């Protein structure tokens, strides 16, 4: 058995490990075994911190959507731009500034909303 064979086995193991780990977390999330209470809404007022508002906070929804868009877009960008020309020269692609601005704006809205609702 050569070093290359061993490294192939280790690589395969880590790919399988990561897929099972991520898959397990996502399955638990979908089955409701991961706590998501209050992910999209905040308590109604500071006097009743244990009672959630029935309405969804728009800035939270915006941040969730922009996070998922950014994640999917980056995966697609990586698949399109890297390693297609040859496996010896791979790289993680740069994120466009527009996407960073979108995320920065969503974060600003989220933090502003959080500060506003707390005051």
């Amino acid at each position, binding site marked *: 058995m050569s070093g290359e064979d061993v490294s192939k086995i280790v690589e395969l193991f880590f790919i399988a490990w990561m897929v099972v780990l991520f898959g397990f977390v996502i399955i638990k999330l979908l089955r409701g075994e991961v706590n998501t209470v*209050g992910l999209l809404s905040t308590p109604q007022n500071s006097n009743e911190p244990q009672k959630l508002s029935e309405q969804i906070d728009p800035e939270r929804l915006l941040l969730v959507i922009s996070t998922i868009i950014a994640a999917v877009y980056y995966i697609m960008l990586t698949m399109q731009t890297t390693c297609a020309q040859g496996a010896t020269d791979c790289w993680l692609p740069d994120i466009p500034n527009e996407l*960073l601005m979108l*995320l920065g704006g969503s974060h600003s809205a989220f933090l502003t909303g959080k500060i506003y609702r707390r005051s």
Partner: protein
Amino acid sequence: MGNVDQRTGVFFVVGFLVVVCMLGVWAIQWDVKAQDVALLGFISFSAVIIAFAAAVLWNIIDGSIDLFGIISEPDDVANIDGKPKASLSRFQFLVFTFVVAGLFLMLSIEAGAFVNIPNNVLGLIGLSGGSFIVSKAVGPKAKDALTEVEKADATLKAAEIAAKKAGADAKTAEAKLKKAKADAAAAKVQE
């Protein structure tokens, strides 16, 4: 009990040294090359790391590592109907960690070397982390929650003291009333 543990430890160390010496003798005897030793070391280290990874995965599947609170705030910071509140910043951290770590691993395996991480990707993770820290700073703090509990405790104690005092006052007033009645009765008798 302590002696048994100590003896086991000594046996383990001595046994380990014997195995290492035997391996050394075997390597010299059979003229093992440096590449073979390196391969053996690589296999051993890989086995250890794989064992760690497998143990973590098994504990998650087994339920020993509970993922319920993977995106939750600490219990003493925010609590909704007995459950900790989920944190959006933690959720975002989780998603970006999956994406960046997964792609980094895949590309590194494909390239056969660690790939460069562009500054904007680091900026993305930094943005997420920065927002997480700021949201912690402006959100409800555990200390505040503790202060509230302390305040409630202090109020309860004050109420208990006031109740005891009121009870004592009531007894004193009752005693005074009885004494006054007795005095009045005595005065009537004298008249």
